[in-house]
Each structure stands twice: as C-alpha cells, then as structure tokens.
C-alpha cells in the first residue's frame, strides 16, 4: 500500500494515543503526587513540582480507623463475588439452555432490574434491612450490591454459555452426568477465564459502589468510597489524606488489571459479541 498513507496513519495514531494517554494518566499521577505532599504544599499555586515527599497521609491511614474501611470493602466485595457466582452461574447456564419466550422475558427481566434509580430504592432497602436487623452490617451491603451485580453476572455468563457447543452437554449427559455434574465438571472448567473476568467485574463494581454503602452503613461497615466522601466534608480540607485514601482505593484495581486484564478483555468480548 501507499507508504506515505501508512506513515500518515502512524503519525495520526501516535498523536491520538499521546493525547488520550496524557488525558488519562495525568489525573492519576497528580493524585499520587498530591498524596505525598503536605497540606500546605498541595494547595500551593503555582504548583510545586519539586518537593520532599512526606508519607504522613499514609501513616494516618495505617493509624486510624480508615484501615477498617478497607477490610470492609474487601469482605463485602468477596462476599458479593461468591454470592453472585454461586447463584448466577447455574441460573445463567439454565437460561442459556432454554429457548423461546420464557427465556427471553426472563433474561430481559433480569437485565431490567439494574435500571431502577438507586436514590429511589434506598428508602425501601433501608426499611427492608432494618426489619431484617441487618443495618450497618457488611452482609447487608453485599446483599444490596447483589441486586446490581447478579443481573450483570447472569447476563454476561448467559450470553457466553450460549456460545458453547451443546454437544459438550449432550456428551456428558449421555455418560450419565446430572445437569449439576455437567455444569461443575464440564462447563465451569472450560469457562474459567470468563467466570474469572466476571468475578473481577463484580468485585470492582462492589468495591466502587457508593450510594447503597453510604446509606446502609454507619459505624461498623463503612466502605472506602464512603470514607473518601466523608473526608472531604470534614473541617480541614485534607487533600493529601483524601488523595492517599484514593490511591489506596485503587490498589485492587492495579492488582486486577495487572493480573486479569487479558481475561477481562476476552471475557467482556465474548459476552458482548455473542
């Protein structure tokens, strides 16, 4: 092909990626820098680019009750992943092996459940969890998150399972396997990458969610986003601390993106296309 044309494309691509790259990465870098400044330096203008990093903000996190919020977020996220998979995998599998109007309506119903705006379900959920005696427990938040993550899990896995050849099931069934055995020993093993990526998506969703966690928790079960939002409203606008908590809140993201990104892409891809 025309080489000047190719070079043009390459330059265009490089320029585009540079701009988008800076746009994406700069706020993150700024956040990390901010977490290492003193309060006074962080607010100084023009910004101080050369400064001695201080780790006060991180010490505050380690010393104070904020660590507990990380423990809460982690527990809630993992509980949520476990529930979403244990309930969602069989359901998605069953739905994927159904055809016709029932299947269609059911899957649309499952999808539509994501849609009720959160502000409007807060009061009902509050009333529900209060009557169950679950307010300010990690379990309540995990359950509430399930209302959003379970539909997502089922939806993504259902479309994926539908893409798997049914010959696999048939072969297993002919060998005398029950549907549960087929699912556990045939379907799940070959779907491991997809299930892993769904788990990651569910975890991240739960880790990031603010509104439900905000209302359903008070002292014991506060999550990281709730703490971040709370910090900004205190007397002292402690930007380094907010930034430090924010940086820490991205840790699982770093881990997951590093470890599982390939799977996420592959997983979302098959979920989306099929």
């Amino acid at each position, binding site marked *: 092909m025309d080489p000047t044309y190719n070079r043009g494309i390459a330059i265009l691509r490089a320029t585009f990626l540079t701009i988008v790259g800076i746009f994406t990465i700069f706020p993150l870098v700024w956040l990390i820098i901010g977490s290492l400044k003193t309060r006074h330096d962080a607010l100084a203008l023009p910004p101080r680019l050369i400064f001695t990093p201080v780790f006060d903000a991180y010490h505050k996190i380690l010393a*104070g*009750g904020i660590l507990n919020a990380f423990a809460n977020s982690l527990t809630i996220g993992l509980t949520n992943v476990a529930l979403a998979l244990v309930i969602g995998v069989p359901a998605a599998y069953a739905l994927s092996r159904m055809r016709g109007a029932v299947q269609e309506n059911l899957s649309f119903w499952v999808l539509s459940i994501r849609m009720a705006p959160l502000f409007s379900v807060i009061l009902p959920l*509050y009333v529900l969890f*209060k*009557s169950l005696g679950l307010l*300010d427990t990690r379990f309540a938040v995990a359950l509430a998150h399930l209302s959003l993550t379970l539909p997502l899990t089922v939806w993504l896995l259902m479309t994926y399972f539908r893409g798997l050849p049914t010959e696999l099931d048939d072969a297993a069934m002919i060998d005398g396997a029950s549907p549960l055995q087929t699912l556990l020993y045939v379907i799940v093993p070959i779907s491991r990458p997809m299930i892993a990526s769904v788990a990651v998506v569910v975890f991240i969703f739960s880790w990031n969610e603010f509104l439900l966690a*905000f209302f359903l928790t008070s002292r014991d079960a506060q999550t990281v986003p709730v703490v971040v*939002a709370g*910090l*900004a409203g205190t007397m002292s606008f402690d930007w380094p601390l907010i930034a430090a908590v924010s940086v820490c809140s991205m840790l699982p993201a770093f881990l997951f993106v590093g470890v599982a990104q390939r799977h996420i892409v592959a997983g979302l891809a098959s979920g989306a296309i099929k």
Partner: protein
Amino acid sequence: MTAAPRISLALAAIIATASGPALADTEVNILAFAPGFAWADMFGPSGTEKTDKLRAFEEAEGIVVNMEFADEETARQKVLLDLVNETGTYDLVMLGSDGAVQTFSYAGYLEPLDDYLDTAKDYFDADQVYPQFLEANTVNGKLWALPYYSFGAGVIYRKDLFEKYGIDEFPGTVAELEDVLRTIKAGLEADGMDDVHTLTMRGAPGEEPSLDLAGFVYADAGFPAWFEGGPTTPEDIKANKAKPIFTSEFRGGFERFVEWSKEFGPPGIATHTWVDMMNLYGQGQAVVLMPSAINGFAALGGTQDENVRDHTGFAPSPVGASGKPVQSFWTFSVGVSAQSANKEAAYKTLAFLTGEQAMQGFAESIGWPYSTFPSITRGEVLTAKWPTELLDQVEASYEQANPHYFPYIPELSAFMERIGTAASEAISGEKSVEEALNDLQNWAEERMERAGYYE
C-alpha cells in the same frame, strides 16, 4: 405514625427483644459531625478515643457513650433515615437550628426536653445560657434540642488592606459597606492583586447559602419576609392565609446577596461552601468575610499566612435598610430521639455534652470567641485570648439576634434547600434574579398549598 414504619417498628421490637441480655451500663449512641473538633476534649483529636473527662462521666453515671462521627452531609441524611424509620439506633442526634430542629420536632420524631431540664442541672443549667440559643431550639413553645457550639452574625476583615485603601473604620450599614467594597475592589484591581477577592461568602447549591441569605433578607425588610406580614409559625401563617412573598419583600435582601456575590466575590462563589469561605480567608485571598464570622475564626485557627494572623479585625454585622443587622445565627443542636430506649440517660449525656464543662473544653481546645455560656465568654481562657471589645461585640451580636429570623415551620429544610439553590442559580448567571425568584415563588405557593396551609 405511618403504616410502613409501624410494621418495621414491630419487627424491630421483636428483633430487639431477641437480641442478648441488657448490659449493666446504659448505652447512649450519638451521631454528630466534625470529629477532632467537636468534643475534642471528650473523644480526642481523632474522634475515636475516650478521654479521662468522658470516662469520669461514664463511671459516675453508669452510662457508656458511643459516639459516631460522620461528615455533616452524611450525618444529616443518617439522622433523617433513622428518625423517619423510627429505628432508634441513635439516642442523641445532631440537628442544627436551620431546619432539622423544626422539621423533626413538628413531625414528632424528637423528645421535648422541658421536663428533663431539672434532672441534670449540674451539667446543664438552662438559666446560665444565653437565652437566644435556647430560643433557637424552641419550636411551638417547647425546647427540642440543646445547643453545642453556636454563633451569631459578624464580620471578619483584613485591617491592613482596609487601611491601605484609606478606610479607617468598618462601616455600620449595608449601604456604606457597599461603597467600601467598591473602593477596595478598585484598589485591588489597580494594584494588580487579582488573586485577592473583596468579599467571601457562600453560594453553593442547596441549603448552604440560606442561613446567611435569610439574614440579608431580614436586615433589608426588617422582618422574616417569607410570608405576607412576616409570620414565623404555622399557626400564624394559617390564621392569616399568608402567601409567600419571594417576589416582593423577600427580593431586596436576596438581590443584594446575589449582587455582592457576583460583583465582589471570588469567581467560584456559586459553588462555595463555608469550607471554601474559610480557606480563602485563611490563605489571605479575601478581604471581608461575612456574615457568618465564625468561619473567619475557623480560618484564623489554621492559617499559615502572617498577614491574616496579624491583621484580622472583627466588626459587628452591618445594619440593613430596615435598621436591623444582617443575621447569621446558628446552633449545633443535639436532640433526644423519640425512639430512644433510654431517654433519661440520653438526656443526662446530652446535658453533659452541651454543659458548661463541655463548653469550657471547647474554649480550651478550639478557642473561638463564641460560647453558649456567658461565664465562659467572660472566663479566663477566652478573655486571655481575645480583646474585651471583641467579646463585647460578640455578645452584642447574640442580643441583637432574632433566632427566628426565618419562619419556624416544618417545611423549613425544603425552603432552605430551594432558597439556597435559587441563590446559586442567580449568582452563576444560570437564571436572572427575577426568574429565580419567580420559580421559587411558584414552588413555595404549591408546596404550602399542598401542606394544607390555606384550606
């Protein structure tokens, strides 16, 4: 009581009975905001400890005090959900005299405190408190909350910059102040000091500006100009079928607030809360802070700017066209939940947390010239820290205050929210003053109609 809460209440009762044996000590749960600042003498600088002072109280009374701190917004929402659902999680709730006290007392979610006053006089003696702060928490003839830190209106300003532009004295009236602000603005511009703003106030959407804005309206009209004739109770509004007057008498003060914000305020003022007000002043980026001077004192506490530290002056709030001063009057009120299982213990704790000892602790740890007890305003700590003249002026600001400078109606929170947002709209230029007030008026008429005021 409503149907849903009743059902959930029954369920909650079942669960409550099922859960564990009672402890020897009575537990009192509190929800409040500003950790490390409110009650730093009780819960330490992090808000998570218990000091000897608090432990002594706990031992003496056989009460365990569980404090939960949240940021202001969170605390308000939590209190709302807890009270509306009659959960009873919190025995003591943080309220604020600018809406919550009124709303929740009318709705029956709070316990009236009049009969408790004598039960813990050693901690909180109502006769020893500035009466205005109790009046601020009195709705419909009953006392619903006790005041923790509280404040009246005033001005904090930079004496050095006033002198620089040839102004020797802080003006006494709003009209004079407007001229002074104009002079300062011109001076700052001429000197190229474009990062210093003439005035800092607050104009964020929501209830944020309303406390101060209502003060401008009061000073301009001479009465709480929200409804025809200025009634401040639901009974009076009903009796006179008083309609909202946001497009007429309310307008003067509103317009002044908006115009000043636009002309003299920092460019971001339509998004500013008291925290921004405080920071701007503290960083030496504002000449005048008003009418909630307390935010200026807060700025003084944390500033690293020498000019701010050395050249700050205090002045009484200027008087408006009506001859009354611009108001900004607020109490950090704490009330007893009607659902509390231990109201006596809750009140005792409340009395301790708002009593003379607690305010003494507040004066020692924070040191603002505001206190709810005259004995502390004139006590050792504050007189050593502040000039007598300033303390006189602060006291005068309470005396001149009318805590009911806005109506004490159940709908107050909603009105505060709407009024503040209307101001933010007008300041940002999203709407003209005319449009913003027309919309406010229409909403208010409808809301009052629906609440049954004009039947």
